[in-house]
């Protein structure tokens, strides 16, 4: 069974022993294709992994390059990067809610029943008469929303692209265009932010703020209220990982702290990060082959069922994403910044934050980040002044040699890029993508990732509409991207 409304290809099937398996397909072998290229190509090409995580990947790649070259952006350049990144996270969260999550609870067929006053929704209803009218679209959907609530949600759904366009315009001012930003360079950013650009950014952020911090959150809370089962469904792992740095600033400057919460103990996430290929269509690396070399594809490998590698930290699987960031932040005792978010989650999920790793908790924790990110964006724009230097000249970076790592918290979890450069070219590029954590198959010790753990409780024929919808809700709550996971 193929799951739609996510990037890339994800198929679900039952293994002979009855467990549900999530199989990511269509690999692009990007790590292998980057070998021999200049690192500047990597900063650009990694964005083709996907739209939601593209900026995160580019940031991690350029940070890895800078680590090799020993260059650092000036403060204004770091702030500009952080702003670009948090705008991409805002965009991803809002897009993901309206176009991936919400259709799991509000079928397209609701368009045909719309009787509100928005012309745009009525026109969309006419244009979507094919898919919306198909009988299977209604199957398995409980009539949870009232007519007025359905109308309101459809109107917000139809308005969402306008707000996404606003966020895209902001990212274009910083990055040249979105998707695919063009101004991340070693040493900072190639763009200039004059008074007009900064004023434009201020204006756009102010204009989109009500949608992000009020409308989206209200719709999310309504969804949770009408579907109380998702508060406790889809429980994942009890180990959580955050590499900090939503916004790219990283380290102690990041909005969220770095941390690994395992067995109830919080520690710095300094253990080695590896990827198991036990159930993956890759041949194991030869002994002594050296880290970072891409493993050889083995599509006929016995026992393999996915192209997603199993990311592990210190050999352990971990759940990642907004809920992990919040659980770890709460555990470190960061008051003020996250206390409001934590309170909202606890009020509406009716469980303590550490138990928020459920469908409802994952959806709500992403929405809870929106307000925090908007505030941070405003603070950055207040600090940035016109025509500051955003880049430190780094011509020597073109011939840099050595190894460097870049880590960023993407919308769905941590991104890590490890680059080995030789004579100004990529010798190896090792990418651990966010969806590789949650979407991982079992590793060599048989431990599975958060997604398959959450799917394990779903019984019945997966082709039945009601079961299919339940599976979709679990998967989409992770903001999972198969394209990101298999890269």
């Amino acid at each position, binding site marked *: 069974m193929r799951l739609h409304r996510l990037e890339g290809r994800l198929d679900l099937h039952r293994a002979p022993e009855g467990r549900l398996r999530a199989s990511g*397909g269509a690999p692009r072998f990007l790590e292998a294709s980057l070998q021999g290229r*200049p690192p500047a*190509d990597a900063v650009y090409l990694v964005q083709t992994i996907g739209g939601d995580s593209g900026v995160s990947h580019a940031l991690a790649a350029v940070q890895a390059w800078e680590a090799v070259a020993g260059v650092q952006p000036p403060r204004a350049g770091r702030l500009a990067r952080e702003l670009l990144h948090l705008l991409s996270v805002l965009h991803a969260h809002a897009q993901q809610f309206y176009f991936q999550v919400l259709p799991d609870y509000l079928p397209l067929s609701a368009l045909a029943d719309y009787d509100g006053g928005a*012309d745009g929704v009525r026109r969309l209803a006419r244009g979507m008469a094919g898919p919306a009218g198909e009988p299977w679209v209604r199957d398995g959907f409980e009539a949870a929303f009232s007519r007025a609530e359905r109308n309101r949600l459809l109107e917000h759904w139809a308005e969402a692209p306008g707000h996404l366009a606003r966020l895209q315009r902001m990212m274009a001012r910083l*990055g040249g265009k979105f998707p*695919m930003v063009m101004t991340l360079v070693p040493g900072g950013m*190639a763009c*200039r932010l004059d008074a007009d650009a900064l004023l434009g950014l201020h204006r756009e952020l102010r204009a989109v703020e009500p949608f992000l911090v009020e409308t989206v959150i209200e719709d999310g809370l309504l969804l949770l209220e009408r579907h109380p089962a998702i508060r406790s469904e889809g429980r994942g792992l009890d180990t959580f990982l955050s590499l900090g740095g939503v916004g790219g600033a990283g380290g102690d400057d990041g909005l969220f702290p770095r941390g690994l919460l395992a067995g109830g103990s919080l520690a710095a996430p300094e253990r080695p990060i590896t990827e198991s290929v036990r159930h993956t269509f890759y041949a194991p690396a030869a002994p002594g082959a050296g880290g970072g070399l891409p493993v050889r594809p083995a599509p006929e490998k016995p026992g393999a069922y996915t192209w997603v590698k199993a990311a592990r930290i210190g050999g352990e699987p971990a759940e990642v994403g907004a809920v992990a960031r919040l659980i770890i932040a709460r555990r470190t005792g960061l008051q003020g910044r996250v206390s409001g978010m934590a309170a909202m989650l606890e009020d509406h999920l009716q469980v303590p934050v550490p138990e928020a790793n459920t469908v409802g908790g994952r959806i709500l924790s992403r929405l809870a980040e929106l307000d925090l990110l908007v505030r941070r964006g405003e603070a950055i724009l207040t600090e940035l002044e016109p025509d500051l230097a955003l880049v430190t000249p780094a011509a020597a970076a073109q011939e840099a040699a050595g190894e460097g790592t870049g880590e960023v918290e993407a919308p769905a979890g941590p991104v890590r890029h490890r680059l080995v450069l030789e004579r100004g070219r990529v010798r190896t590029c090792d990418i651990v993508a966010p969806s590789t954590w949650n979407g991982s198959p079992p590793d060599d010790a048989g431990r599975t990732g958060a997604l398959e753990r959450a799917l394990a409780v779903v019984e019945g024929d997966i082709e039945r509409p009601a079961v299919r919808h339940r599976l979709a809700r679990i998967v989409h709550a992770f903001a999972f991207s198969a394209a990101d996971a298999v890269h």
Partner: protein
Amino acid sequence: MQELTRRDVLRWLTVTAAGGALAPALEGLAGAIEARGGPPELVWFNGSGGQLNFLAHLGHEHPGLLERIAGRWVVAHLDPLLAAPHVEPTRQFRGPPVVVLESLPSPEAWQRPEGTWLSAVIAKARTVVLLGSEACFGVLGASQPDLARTEALCEEHGTPLIKLPGIPVPPHHLVGTLAHLERIGFPRLDVHRRPELYYGETVCRRCERRGDLENGVFAGAFGEPGCLLRLGCKGPVTHNTCSVHKWNGGVSWCVGAGGPCTGCSAPGFPDHGGLGLYGRLSASRHALAGTWLAHLEGLGWGFFGLAALGFAFRLVRRAVRPPAAELPAEGRRGGA
């Protein structure tokens, strides 16, 4: 709403391809399509790739576009919004649909039910539009065999094919191409099957830094003013409308923001004949005729040519005319 004539639509397309007021033109086109009645059916298929193009369309500068233009088309299938695996194979289309492929199906995908369905739809499609450079050129996430298979399928069934390359594709390229198909007819394509309307001119030709190129002012590092040629800009060899329409509502674009053009809509992307994305172009190799760089190279070759010619002349002269000592006494100048 008054229906636009074919001439009006032509004028709109010319304006949007060359720059100008986009919004009023789109409003008029949307109205014309509405007035005409019976919108055509659109199938947007994305087998397994990223959704860069869908995201670009979602956030298109005229959000009303999704409802005004896309809403005019009966969306028979739109992968990014579907809840269920695929449209039932028995679904009847009112007429030949237009198929947009945002990614190319792999050989395995063609064997699956959705692949079989897609193959049947392509067989009866009015036109297939390949969206994005991966699909158009069989690069990165796609492959040459994937592209060859799709092209062969279209050829087998006589289904016309249009390519809209770019990473992502400027959203108005697809909207305009669909409108052209509907109101005017099949657009004229270049040798790479790209509409000349949108890929007929290089990015460099109308770049805001063109004057710097002509005056020999080049940026030596990122963040500096000047032409970005020395930073690897592929604008002179890349055909697209980015320098005219820019991106995301016209607020910026790659070169305008200081990022060299990577040639994402050029057939040579991403290798560009071994240069890579940011390797510096050579004037003679990449036919940059008329630019300052070409002039300089031309002058250089000219001097070399003259020197070689002079040397050759001396050799020939020495060969055909004996040295002065061998000449008869009467033949020497000033001889006694």
